């Protein structure tokens, strides 16, 4: 069974440019989460999809970030325009729904974003 995949693995862009990160969850996982780790800080929650619906987007830093999950499969996270403070590692995770949230979240390898 394929794990969670993320693309690209690395992205280096100039301030003001747009970047789109993609996450393919494990097939059949209804829950999809985005997290971010800024250098030197803890991993922080960004948002949570249940199928194609945004369940919780309380962690999104501002309106320069837009996440979508069309059809309840893969998800994209777009940053437009990128700022220096957006640099960090963006993780995607997915889990099954089984009546509660104690299920394991399976993480992808992350996308390292560098904004110059």
């Amino acid at each position, binding site marked *: 069974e394929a794990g969670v995949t993320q693309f690209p693995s690395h992205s280096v862009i100039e301030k003001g440019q747009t970047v789109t990160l993609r996450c393919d969850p494990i097939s059949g996982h209804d829950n999809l989460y985005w997290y971010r780790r800024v250098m030197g800080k803890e991993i922080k929650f960004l948002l949570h999809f249940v199928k194609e619906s945004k369940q919780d987007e309380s962690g999104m830093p501002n309106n320069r970030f837009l996440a979508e999950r069309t059809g309840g499969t893969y998800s994209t996270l777009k940053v437009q325009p990128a700022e220096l403070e957006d640099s960090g590692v963006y993780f995607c995770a997915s889990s099954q729904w089984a009546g509660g949230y104690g299920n*394991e979240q399976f993480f992808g390898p992350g996308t390292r974003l560098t904004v110059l």
Partner: protein
Amino acid sequence: AQSVTQLDSQVPVFEEAPVELRCNYSSSVSVYLFWYVQYPNQGLQLLLKYLSGSTLVKGINGFEAEFNKSQTSFHLRKPSVHISDTAEYFCAVISYNQGGKLIFGQGTELSVKP
């Protein structure tokens, strides 16, 4: 609001020595507790989790953790570490009423030396 504190940012140990990575949490509601590990250039992998029941939880690779509700702690232990255990370890919680989002500690870098 929930928070997780990992008391040590770096823990150097010699191979075959025991290790304890400390984690304390703060929450006004009940939580699920997790330990994840990140090896270099890889994603996070679940080591173990506490949902309910026995407070001593055993995980993969010989790790175990004990949930202590009165001290709000969930320390991770291994009796004898290997070079291959060198990695970053993350303690995390999910609150029952927070929809599944993990709240992470700052991470502990375990460095096992020969």
